[in-house]
């Protein structure tokens, strides 16, 4: 693996995210917690980045700021040229709606609504017409391979299928970035690889993917690794030989109903 320090790109073209020296301090009772101590990173369009680090390293806090769920205490965060730090709560919500698609470890689907209704939810908050909503939702579900299960409820879907619904939901408003927080944490090994395959396919079609993981195996599917420790970036390197999910899946045994591995 070639080590390369991430540098600010000479030109701004294709630069999606520009984070400069952000710090995040918050109060926990009487104690001040310094979650981020001066982090700078730039991400260009079309990248596939894995954010890694132990718990407490600051990667979750970083993800929250990246996803416009939180604002840095100091420093700037430019998303597609917009200074996120200057936005109001409502404007941040709009960005989360249009430019960012979230995928969570626990899927976070609404349990009493069907798959297609779950996928339609972001459009509900962005005034897309009713007819258009349905067709876009179906299209997104097809993209993740669930075109035949649009009316199923989450309790009728497997973990992998639920995560696919979550990915479809993240896609539905044509975001610039997909942010995934330990997306395979609740899935078995084979399903994890399938889901990584979806991310890779989306990335090939031009969507920027940033995912947080603590599993090196999963990080191998990404093209760039950013490692956090103690609130700072310790390493930022290109993954020269990323694993291809569609090939990796061939080597993985399927587990049949009896729980025995097939040959």
């Amino acid at each position: 693996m070639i080590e390369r320090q991430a540098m600010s790109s000479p030109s701004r073209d294709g630069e999606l995210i520009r984070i400069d020296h952000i710090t995040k301090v918050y109060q926990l009772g009487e104690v001040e917690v310094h979650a981020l101590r001066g982090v700078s990173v730039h991400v260009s369009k079309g990248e596939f980045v894995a954010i890694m680090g132990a718990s407490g390293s600051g990667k979750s806090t970083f993800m929250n700021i990246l996803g416009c769920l939180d604002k840095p205490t100091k420093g700037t965060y430019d998303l597609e040229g917009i200074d996120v730090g200057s936005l109001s709560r409502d404007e941040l919500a709009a960005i989360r709606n249009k430019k960012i698609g979230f995928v969570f470890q626990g899927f976070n689907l609404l349990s009493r609504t069907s798959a297609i209704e779950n996928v339609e939810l972001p459009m509900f908050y962005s005034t897309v017409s009713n007819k258009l909503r349905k067709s876009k939702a179906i299209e997104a579900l097809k993209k993740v391979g669930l075109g035949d299960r649009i009316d199923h409820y989450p309790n009728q879907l497997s973990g992998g299928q639920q995560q696919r619904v979550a990915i479809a939901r993240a896609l539905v408003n044509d975001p610039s970035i997909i942010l995934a927080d330990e997306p395979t944490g609740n899935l078995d090994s084979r399903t994890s690889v399938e889901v990584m395959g979806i991310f890779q396919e989306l990335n090939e079609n031009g969507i920027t993917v940033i995912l947080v993981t603590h599993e090196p195996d999963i990080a191998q599917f990404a093209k760039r690794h950013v490692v956090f420790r103690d609130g700072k970036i310790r390493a930022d390197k290109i993954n020269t030989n990323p694993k291809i999910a569609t090939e990796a899946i061939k080597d993985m045994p399927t587990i049949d109903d009896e729980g025995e591995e097939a040959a």
Partner: protein
Amino acid sequence: MRSFLTMLGIIIGVAAVIAMLAIGQGAEYSVKQQIASLGTNVLMVFPGAQQQAGVRVAAGSAVTLTEDDAEAIATECPAVQFISPGSFAGGQVIAGNLNWNTHIQGVGPDYLEIREWPVEYGEFFTSQDVKSATKVCVLGTTVATNLFPESDPVDQTIRIRNVPFKVIGVLTSKGQNAMGQDQDDVILAPYTTVIRRLAHWQNLAYVLVSAVSLQDIATAQQQITDLLRMRHKIQPYEPDDFTIRNQTDIASAATATTQILTILLASIASVSLLVGGIGIMNIMLVSVTERTREIGIRMSIGARARDILTQFLIEALVLSLLGGSTGIVLGVIGSSAISNFAKWPTIITAFSIILSFGFSIAIGIFFGFYPARKAALLNPIDALRYE
């Protein structure tokens, strides 16, 4: 199921309000009906100035209304159609070996015209009887049934305080009046007879007057006032020494009571509405806490604070509106049940339904606002982490 229990407070509250309003409005309506049964174009002239609208005669009132006054009213006021001078007596009435305590009203020959109250059997007395103060009388149906349970009262003799009277007729039934008194528990006799033979005072208690038509009531009232002021030689700066009450006054006096009753009943019922609203707020608060994660999810995909607020406010509104509608239906059913079983009159008006509906909406918004606001102000990061 939980939603149903939450709505129960509102359902009961609204049903109670509707039922109470229906009872109160039914009471008011029946009071008005019974006032109308007094006779439509009726005025009453009382001696002495009275401060409040009442159909009572002040005891020991000034001696200011005379039979001649009554006659003058009849002849010199064109807007007046009939008059009946009146006096009261009460006491024991004996017929054979039965007795009965009742009121004896001394009235004029046109009394029945004014009251629009026909005789059922026999006949009424005439102006000749009044002139001669003959000892004749007409019985109300209650008196007739109690004194003559098996025979025809007409042409029989009764003793009123030991004075013998001949019964010449029986009245048709009128039922209860606005004050709850049995109008059929009465004996009518010429007022002259009552004053001279039975009453303790020699002068009139009142003069009952009917105007030529509904539109002439005000004119009649004015004419009587002018006439009596002239006859009693009252100076322009002096007040009247008599009181004239028309049906509207009597009606508003009576309905004032029922209106207060209605307001009281409805207010008490409203308390349960308040309790229902608190119930909604409680459940909404629990709901917000339970759905903290869900709120976090919605916020993460782009819901603004105002979207969350609206979502929960609408949920509270749905609860209160559903409860309100059910309560209205229940209240209507309950009111008809009450009027069937308790025989109280009930009236459901569009006003009471609209009022209850409005209350439900207001309660939904008011009590739903605090929980909705709590939801909207959640921090998305914390909300997402909530287990």
